[in-house]
């Protein structure tokens, strides 16, 4: 657990970068420090590992005052990843990841084992990447190594300053997803700095919104979206908060677990009759292996053809996707109903537009009730 207690930063020239900031992040939670540039979010983060000295107030990690610890010792126990990554170009990927373990005096065997574990975790085969130099990696791979390095000595607390900031949007979204999955397993306590509200909503268990050095609101993403405490929060969140709220929900949370199905080589007439009888407009076509291969609307089923010939292309939402991805698929394919599939494209259920609308309404209420 990490607790900031009335922390302020005043520079010698009188600039007040951070003013009286207090908040607490429980173990295993990811707290996003969010705000426009110059709001003091990075300064606040850097005061935690004392890269920037605190002017007033205290910061406690697991109840211990960081001001009383040895600076280097403190930092070796906190993972640190920054936007510019700052990989050491003269060291291999493996050596980079082993930086903190070396500083902490781990044995060579332990270090090597840990580096390989972390590369595996990042989806980078150690055999291929361990001995490469940073200059031989792509931007996304470097970011991954940066994250692996900050996990090097298995710290319980991580500080991440826009760790996915310097890469293209597509890779960024993928890395965010990968990182969330890793976090589900590792359950680290994380302070995550960003100026991107979409990233904040997607990544944060809690968001600390800052402006002009002050903490403006601290709460869950839903609270920020649906119960802004003042005009600044409201304007920062934006008028399209309902759209942003789509990121808070995942397909698996609101899908229907069952779906009417048909086989590809069934007769269209027969299937149509069945649909009319059961009063359904859409069904999923699955092959013998249970994989989703397409969808059919009742109105398309006619003549002596088979289902395979009239079905629409297999537009499907991955079960882990967030709702805005699902909506985007719906708009793109013109369908009101999407099949939900797992990684192997096995059919898991369906997602309807009505279900999304209902869920959003509920989310708004929940935010306002809290």
């Amino acid at each position, binding site marked *: 657990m990490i607790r900031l207690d009335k922390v302020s930063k005043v520079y010698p020239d009188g600039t007040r970068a951070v003013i009286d900031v207090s908040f607490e992040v429980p173990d295993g939670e990811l707290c996003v420090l969010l705000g426009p540039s110059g709001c003091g979010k990075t300064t606040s983060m850097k005061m935690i*590992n004392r*890269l920037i000295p605190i002017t007033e107030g205290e910061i406690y990690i697991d109840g211990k005052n960081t001001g009383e610890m040895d*600076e*280097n*010792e*403190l*930092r*070796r*126990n906190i993972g*640190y*990843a*920054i936007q*510019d*990554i*700052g*990989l*050491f*170009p*003269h*060291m*291999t990927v493996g050596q980079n990841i082993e*930086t*903190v373990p070396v*500083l902490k005096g781990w044995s060579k065997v332990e270090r090597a084992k840990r580096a390989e574990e972390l590369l595996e975790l990042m989806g980078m085969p150690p055999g291929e990447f361990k001995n490469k*130099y*940073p*200059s*031989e990696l792509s931007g996304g791979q470097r970011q991954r190594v940066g994250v692996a*390095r*900050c996990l*090097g000595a298995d710290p319980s607390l991580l*500080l991440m300053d826009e760790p996915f900031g310097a890469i293209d949007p597509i890779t960024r979204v993928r890395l965010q997803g990968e990182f969330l999955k890793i976090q589900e397993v590792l359950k680290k306590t994380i302070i995550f700095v960003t100026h991107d509200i979409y990233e904040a909503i997607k990544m944060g268990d809690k968001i600390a919104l800052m402006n002009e050095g002050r903490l403006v609101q601290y709460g869950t993403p839903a609270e920020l979206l649906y119960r802004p405490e003042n005009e600044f929060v409201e304007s920062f969140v934006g008028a399209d908060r309902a759209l942003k709220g789509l990121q808070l929900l995942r397909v698996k949370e609101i899908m229907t677990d069952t779906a009417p199905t048909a086989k590809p080589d069934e007769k269209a007439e027969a299937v149509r009759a069945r649909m009319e009888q059961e009063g359904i407009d859409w069904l999923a076509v699955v092959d013998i292996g249970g994989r989703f291969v397409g969808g059919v609307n009742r109105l398309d089923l006619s003549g002596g053809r088979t289902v395979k010939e009239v079905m629409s292309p297999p537009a499907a939402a991955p079960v882990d996707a967030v709702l805005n991805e699902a909506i985007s698929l719906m708009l793109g394919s013109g369908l009101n109903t999407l099949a939900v599939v797992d990684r192997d494209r096995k059919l898991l259920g369906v997602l309807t537009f009505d279900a999304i609308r209902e869920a959003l309404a509920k989310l708004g209420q929940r935010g306002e009730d809290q």
Partner: protein
Amino acid sequence: MRDAWQILVRRPEVVLDRTLEHLQMVGIACGIAIVIGVPLGIFISGKGKRRQAIADTVLYVAEIAMTVPSIALFGFVMAILSSLNLPSLGLPPAIIALVIYAQLPILRNTYTAIRGVDPAIIESGRGMGMSESQLLFKVKLPLAIPVIMAGLRTSVVATIAIAAIAALIGAGGLGWFIRWGLRQYRMDLIIVGSVSVAIIGILFDVLMHRVERWVTPKGLKRSVRQ
């Protein structure tokens, strides 16, 4: 030209002796310059306003020393030494003058190289809990080495050329041939002296280019970078 060749053929030992003398002079001067220049360069590259002021002063003085014509610098050194009742002819004043000359490229490159290390790299090192000395030896110096070596090369090559003047104050070396050639109007001596200096200069330039590549950390080499 043919006369010059004759000297080389008939008295190779003289040419060899003078060459060794020359190299010894350059070696001692550059050795001292490294011992002073690299640590001083590291020191003045440190953080803080006061350190910056020291850096500005040191670099300024070193640059001024470079603008003094080399012959005049030898003269200055002799004058100062004789006013202190120290030997003002021969090797000692020559070496002192050469050290002053060799200093700037080493000092400036060390300073620039360490200052030039990407701040993000330094911040991530510090953020992971490296002490200042660990940062210096594990991060800053390895990254600065190629540029420091380039300064060293400039310094050695320049010193090889300037050391030819040292013969004027009786320090020997390949300048000895030039000095006698000028005095006795013997073109062959002048050619032997100046061509030898040029050859040694080129040789060391090539050699130290090699060393530069060799000491550059693997991850920084251009062949790896693409």
